[in-house]
Every structure is written in C-alpha cells, then in structure tokens.
C-alpha cells in the first residue's frame, strides 16, 4: 500500500500533464485526459459567460420597472443565458469533462476506441460555441433557448440563424462523444470487468450516451427546419405559410425532454460514486440503480408532451403524456431510496465532495417533487410558463446537474491534477453555494404559484420582495462559485500532492498514479472483485483491506 509519494512538489513523476508541454501537444493531443482538460477549460469559460448574463438580468429584476436594460436587451440576456448554459455548458459538462477523463481509466483501458473522433468532437464543439458567441456579440438573439416558432422563424429580428447553427453543430460533438462512450464501454473493458462490475458512473455514461445518440439527430433536424423556414421562407411552422407551429414544439421537446436526462443522469452517476466512497461500502441496490438509469433513458422518450399541456394539443394527448410522466418519477425515486439506504449502517464522512453529493440530494429531492405539480394536468395549467417552472428546472439542473458536476470535479480533482485543494475552503464554498442557491430559487416557487410569468422584464409591484430575495441569492451563489474557482486554480500550483488514492476509494482510476501516466496504467489491470470492493485492499488484489493511514478524511 504505497501511495504518499515523495514530497518535493515540483518533481512529479512523468504523467499525461508534464510529458510534453508545447501548445501543439495540447491542441493536437489524442489523449482523452488532455481532451477532457480542453473541455474543462472551455466549459468553465461558457459557464462564466452564462453566469454573468444571469447576474445582469437578476440585477435588473430587483425593481419592477426597467432600469438597467431595455426590454430588447433583457430578452437577449436571458436567451444567451439559456443557450449557453444548456447547449454549451450543462449538456456537455459531466460527459465531456469527467466522462472523457474517467471512462477509459475506470474500465482499465488506455484510451477511447476512437481518439481522433474524440479530439474532433472538441473542435466541433468549439466551432459551434464560437458561432453562438458571435451571434450574441454581433447583435444578440432574443428567441429564448426554446426557439418557439413562428416567433423564431418569421418575427424575431436578430441572429437566430447563427445561434441555431451553433447549437446544431454542437450537437454533433455530443454525438461523437456518445458514440465513443458506447463503443469503448462495450469493447475495451479490462479483464474481469463484467457489466455488473462496472462502476455506476460508467453505467450512467452509457445510459446518457444512448439518449444522446437517439435524441440529438432529432433536434438537429428541427434546427435545420427553422433555418430553412427563416432563410428561404419554406412554410413548415408558420401558419401564414401553411405550416404548423405546434409541430415545432413536438419536435423540440422530443429532444429537449430527453436532454434533461442527458443533464441529470451523469450527475446521478457521480453521486453514486461519491456516496459509495464516503460511506465506504457498495451501493445499496446496485442493480436497481443500473436498471433505473436505463428505464429513465427509455421512458424519457415518451413524455415530451408534458411541456405542451396548454399548447392546444388534444385532450387525449394531454392525458397520455401526464400519465406517462408519472412513470419517470418512480425510477428516479428508487435511486433516492438506494442512496439513502447506502448511508444506513455505512461509515459516513463529510469530506467536501460528499457535501456536494448531499447538496445534490437535498436539492434534487425538491426539484423532483416539484415536477409532480407540473405533471399533474390541472396544476400545470396554472403553473406552466411561470417562475414555478423556472425554479423547478433550476433545482434539477443546477441543484442536481451542476452540484453533481462540482462534486465530481472535487472528488477527481486530485486524480486529474495530482494535487489537493484546501479542504476547509472547499467546505466553506460548498455551504455558501448551497445557501445562495436556495435563496435564489426557492422564492421563485412562491412567485410562480402567485402567477408571476417567466421571461418578464417588468412586473407588477407585489412580486418585488421575492425578486429582491432571489437576486440577492444570485450574488451569494456567484460569490460561492468564485471562491471555488479561486482555490481550485490556487491548488494547481500550491496544493498538497495528492497521491494515488487520497479518499481511499475503490475503482480502477485510484490504482494508477495521480495524475495518471499518458497510457493510464503501467500494466493492464485485472479486476478480481465485484464493484466497490471496500472489503479488499483494491479491486485488483486479494489482500483484505488494510485501513489506509493516509486516508485523511
């Protein structure tokens, strides 16, 4: 059980980071770990842009009148926020960063099946992202991230086409990543690593990749249709040209509902890993979690109409979609049950990644349960397109998705960079983020119930108090993210050397160096135990677990 490597901070052993350090060695790298870093840096930049846009319009919303922005500008800000956060941050976040880094390492492979496609996916993504940014800077887009027709095709006078092209192109990078995941997980698992020995993170990536491959082409076609109608006046969605505006909503949500699972399944995978590690045992109901991920991926394709209860779809369609939607709630709830039961009789420690996992659980339970108000027909009619929906999806996407991403980032940070961040600050930031988040979004439920519509620049006075609370929360939240960014960057140079397995976790990624060598393992690992083998010293050895001295938690 060697690990704590020697101190001299500068002399890290040869690894994927220090092997070559030229710019071209980064930009032309085929190493999945370096590609993950490229993604990490670009996604954080997008997160910053999206976050700043949100801060600006939250400031605007502190008063009922228009003071900081004109209506047109306000609309451009929330559109930019939505497009950037969804298409250029959250959808790729966990798969492209943590998934890219970890999938090969966790299954004991040297790289993905198609490393060149992997690199290409980053370039494609950046190309789409840059187009979207140009659309934003050169005049902006004001359709909302949902691009509803006929507004987006015939009425909006902004850079819709450019933004649509950006989202369209970024979709291909998702598809490339998804393809790589599926082939690699099928074909390149280490000896002994059977399907039911796979870590739940891998299962989550697998389920996500399935959704990506089945769903993304549909949104791509839909975006092309917007392009064709807007650019050439072919009547597809605009009734004035003989089109059908509701058709757009069907096509859009056929992708965008499953897309919410592209955003949450990976976070669920991360949380499973965290809870197992910081309870020191295998997850309760491992197989239930696996099958619930797959069930969510499949059922998720049959519920899109729940976004359209008041769109004038038929009564029968409304009933069907409401009915089916309740069935997604069941596998989701089972996961919650399994996570909580893992703590029961576990050995629970509250290190910073676990705090993020707890943040995920606490916020996701609210996000999920508020989904029930929206799945129920009569209540959704009232709540649809109000701040209630805004609060709901932020609880699931930020409370769930982003918390999961940050938890995973902290957990694997020592593996990725070889260094620890300051634990005390990390705990502090996690708490600030949790409080800021709730202060921002909880009041929005109340706003929505009382009828405050979403995407409103000016609003009746009685809503002001809650808007002020929400805007204050947004600043606290932003401050929390800022602290986090600061200490993570600080740790790159000054952090304590982490060693192979600082959390005393199980999983192949912890059996190689931190940071791993370019080819991940010095020799191909052979897996000997079921997953999360905390009773053994490691997945590949038969020695019983000797509690590690260095486990600092």
């Amino acid at each position, binding site marked *: 059980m060697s690990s704590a490597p020697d101190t001299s901070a500068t002399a890290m052993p040869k690894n994927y980071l220090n092997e070559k350090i030229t710019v071209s060695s980064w930009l032309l790298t085929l190493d999945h770990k370096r590609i993950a870093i490229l993604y990490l840096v670009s996604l954080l930049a997008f997160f910053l842009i999206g976050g700043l846009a949100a801060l600006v319009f939250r400031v605007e919303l502190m008063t009922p009148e228009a003071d900081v922005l004109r209506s047109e500008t306000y609309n451009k800000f929330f559109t930019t926020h939505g497009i950037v956060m969804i298409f250029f941050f959250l959808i790729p976040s966990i798969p492209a960063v943590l998934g890219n880094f970890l999938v090969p390492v966790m299954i004991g492979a040297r790289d993905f099946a198609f490393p060149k496609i992997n690199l290409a996916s980053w370039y494609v993504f950046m190309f789409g992202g840059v187009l979207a940014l140009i659309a934003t800077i050169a005049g902006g887009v004001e359709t909302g991230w949902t691009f509803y027709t006929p507004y987006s095709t015939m009425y909006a006078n902004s850079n819709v086409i450019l933004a649509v092209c950006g989202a369209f192109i970024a979709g291909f990078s998702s598809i490339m990543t998804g393809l790589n995941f599926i082939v690699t997980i099928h074909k390149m698992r280490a000896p002994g690593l059977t399907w039911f020995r796979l870590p739940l993170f891998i299962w989550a990536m697998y389920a996500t990749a399935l959704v990506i491959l089945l769903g993304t082409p549909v949104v791509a076609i839909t975006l092309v249709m917007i392009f064709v109608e807007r650019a050439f006046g072919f009547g597809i969605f605009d009734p004035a040209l003989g089109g059908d505006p509701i058709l757009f909503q069907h096509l859009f949500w056929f992708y965008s509902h499953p897309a919410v699972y592209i955003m949450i399944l990976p976070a669920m995978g991360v949380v499973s890993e965290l809870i197992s590690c910081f309870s020191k045992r295998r997850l309760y109901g491992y197989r239930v979690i696996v099958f619930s991920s797959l069930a969510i991926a499949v059922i998720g394709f049959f519920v899109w109409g729940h976004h359209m209860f008041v769109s004038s779809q038929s009564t029968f369609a409304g009933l069907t979609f409401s009915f089916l939607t309740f069935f997604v709630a069941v596998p989701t709830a089972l996961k919650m049950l399994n996570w909580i039961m893992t703590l029961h009789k576990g050995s629970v420690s509250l290190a910073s990644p676990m705090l993020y996992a707890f943040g995920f659980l606490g916020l996701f339970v609210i996000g999920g349960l508020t989904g029930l108000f929206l799945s129920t027909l009569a209540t959704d009619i009232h709540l649809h397109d109000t701040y209630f929906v805004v609060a709901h999806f932020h609880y699931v996407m930020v409370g769930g998705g982003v918390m999961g991403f940050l938890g995973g980032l902290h957990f694997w940070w020592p593996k990725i960079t070889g260094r620890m961040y300051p634990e005390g600050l990390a705990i502090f930031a996690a708490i600030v983020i949790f409080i800021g988040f709730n202060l921002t979004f909880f009041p929005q439920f109340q706003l929505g119930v009382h009828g405050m519509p979403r995407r409103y620049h000016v609003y009746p006075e009685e809503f002001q108090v809650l808007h002020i609370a929400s805007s204050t929360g947004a600043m606290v939240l932003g401050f929390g993210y800022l602290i986090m960014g600061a200490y993570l960057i600080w740790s790159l140079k000054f952090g304590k050397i982490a060693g192979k397995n600082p959390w005393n976790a199980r999983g192949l990624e912890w059996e190689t160096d931190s940071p791993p060598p370019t080819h991940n393992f010095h020799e191909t690992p052979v897996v000997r135990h079921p997953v999360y083998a*905390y009773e053994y010293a490691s997945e590949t050895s038969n020695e019983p677990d000797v509690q590690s001295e260095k486990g600092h938690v």
Partner: protein
Amino acid sequence: MNLLFDLLPVQATEYAKQVDALYLFILAISAFFTLLFVGLLVGFTLKYRRRTQDERPEPPHEHYTLELVGGAVLLALLMGMFFWGAKLYFKAQRPPADAMEVLVSGKQWMWKLQHPSGKKEINTLHIPLGKAVKLSMTSEDVIHSFFIPAFRVKNDVLPGRYTQVWFKPEQEGTFHLFCAEYCGTEHSRMIGYVRVLSQEAYDRWTMNLGDADETPVQAGGRLFAELGCIACHRPDAGALGPDLTGVFGHEVALSDGTTLIADDNYLRESILNPQAKLVAGYAPIMPTFQGSVNEEQLAQLITYIKSLSN
C-alpha cells in the same frame, strides 16, 4: 395579497378552489417526502458517522423488498394525482353550453377583446359575476398565452386556429391578466386586467360604452351577405353549397367517407381552405377567402354561423 405569507393566490372561481385542493394534496405529499428524506439523511449521517479510520461497514445485501414496496406505494400516490388532475382538466376543457362567448385576439403586444354585445376593449376584460364566460382566442402573429392566475386558467393563443378557455367568476374585483408565452420585445407589457362586475354593473358598462356598434353575430350576418356566401349557402334545394343551419357542433360527412364534428377550427378551415375537407355530395367550387377577410371578420363570420345552430 401578501406574497410572503399567503400560500395561495386569490381564488376567484370555484374551479380555482378545486385546483388548489389538489395543489395542497401534492404539496402535503411533497413536504412529507422531503422531510422524511432530509430527516433520514441527517439521521443516518449522525448515527453512522465515521468514528475511526478502520471502520469497515458490511456491504449491503441485495434484496428488493424495500424497493418494490416503496415503488408501489409511490406509484399509487402518483396515480391518485394523475386521476384527480385529469378530472379537473376535463372540466377545464368543457365549457358549459350556455357560456357567454368573448372573442379574443392576441397580437404583439396587446389583447383585443370583443363582447357578444359588440363592445370592444383592449387589455381589460369586463365580465359579469357568476356567469360562465368562454373565450374563443386566436393570434394575429406569434404564439401568446392567455393567463388569469386568480382563475387558475391558461391557454396558448395560436395564429391560424382557435383555442379556448372558460371560467365562472365568483368574486367581484380586479385580477391580473398576463401573456404567459414569450412573444417578443414587449412580452412583459402584454398584460391587463380582468374586472368582474355585478350583472347590473356589467349591463350598465355595456350600455355606457355603447357606440351603437353591431354585435359580432350581426356583423357576421352582414359579411355573409356582402361576401356573397349567401349566394351558394342558401337553405333551398338548388343551392350550390350546403345549408349552414345547424352545422356547428354537429356531425359532417366528408367526401372521403370520414365524418367529423364541426367546431371553430373546422369552420375556420372551411372558409380559408375549402378544398382541405370537402362536404360529401358537393363539388369543390367554393373559393378561398384567405386574404379577403381579416382575423376579426373571420371570427365574426364564424360567430354568425355558430348562431345558426342555436
């Protein structure tokens, strides 16, 4: 209304109260599960916190009773929500037959409303207390959404077709009217009020504003003659087109052998795109009126044709 302390907004209709009962039911269930979950989370974390570094907890056993029972209980509760919600939804979809019909037309960024008496107004809807009101809505441009929080009703307003919303106000007062579907620059200014007046006050209001306009039915009748519809649609045997008396709300046999119930959207299509669905036994000779009638006139024609079925 105090947003900090009131759980629910004003309930100005019976339907709003029924929706709120369901809302409270889901809220109770959600609160229960949230507390249970957070309670267990905190409880387990304290009780099973790591005390020493060499603790080695038992791996959990794989048995699925808890999952099965938990899943079944949950599903039962969820089905309860579904059926309750569906029951109210049916109600919201079926306006009573005697409802007073107000025509609504949304356009960037205002609401135009027309009463059966012919009164027109913009952004403020006056309605009498205790009387069922049905709105027949369409848009002149993009999608809007007609939302009255105090009545718990909302429906999108689409270009090129009719949608409806109905309610029966049971409280006098002034309530918010919002556009809920993002529709462009001034979306947040596409708002107004619903004023619920006593029947007398409503009648007086109708009189006061009386600039001797014709009612929508009268206007429709006039257009029906002016546009020459009447030349083909006559109640006598030699007419080129079908008699429109009693068409609305009844079954129509089409030339392709199918049948349908004539509703607002069918009438609309028959006028704008007559060839799309041909009535059995007639030649496709009716010209399209697309472009020769505007939304308002179209709504009046339809109201007139509907009045032939009363």
